[in-house]
């Protein structure tokens, strides 16, 4: 089964509101990343948070990591129409050759 599971699967909010997406995973990780995908094509890296970090900010993005609960959240503040996309979390295990596993994503739609 998937290592990373995002929820909700889909989210629609008004422009200007904050959007929160969550990611849960099963095994110990080295780091967790969030990616954005527009129009079903290439992904763009947003932010990486390491297992010894609890919170990280990048512009309007805020990511938290709770390793005890094996969960992470991505908060987008003051949402814009351009934020409409799918957002994926990706976890990287502790082993040298562990594969990076992506969840199924949250589809975010910003309403004008």
């Amino acid at each position, binding site marked *: 089964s*998937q290592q990373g599971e995002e929820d909700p699967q889909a989210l629609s909010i008004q422009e200007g509101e904050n959007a929160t997406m969550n990611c849960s995973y099963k095994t110990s990780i*080295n*780091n967790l*990343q969030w*990616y954005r995908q527009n129009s*079903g*094509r*290439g*992904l*763009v*890296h947003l932010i*990486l948070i390491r297992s010894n970090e609890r919170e990280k900010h990048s512009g309007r993005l805020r990511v938290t990591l709770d390793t005890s609960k094996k969960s992470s959240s991505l908060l987008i503040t003051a949402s814009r129409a351009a934020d409409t996309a799918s957002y*994926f979390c*990706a976890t*990287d295990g502790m082993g*040298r*050759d562990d*594969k*990076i*596993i*992506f*969840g*199924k*994503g949250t589809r975010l739609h910003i309403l004008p």
Partner: protein
Amino acid sequence: GAGVSQSPSNKVTEKGKDVELRCDPISGHTALYWYRQSLGQGLEFLIYFQGNSAPDKSGLPSDRFSAERTGGSVSTLTIQRTQQEDSAVYLCASSLERTSGRKTDTQYFGPGTRLTVL
């Protein structure tokens, strides 16, 4: 080039034919990854290269799928005797390196190849 490139961007083929998908990673990136994404789904890991070697091929769905990487750069994903269930977007990503104890795991993705098997 500045980013990861993939070719072709779209490929339509008939069931039973072989296809080759190409990925040009960012220059200097030693790690290269192939993923498959079906419509509305997450990314399914296929294979990972460190240099020219593939320490993890566990994601390849069947022996019809193979990949190689030469010169530590360009990679080719080959699907033999394509089936309709192979239809998906195939994404390639590269990262600077991936070494034990210190992982630089930001992956830079190409635009993908949309494969349609009729």
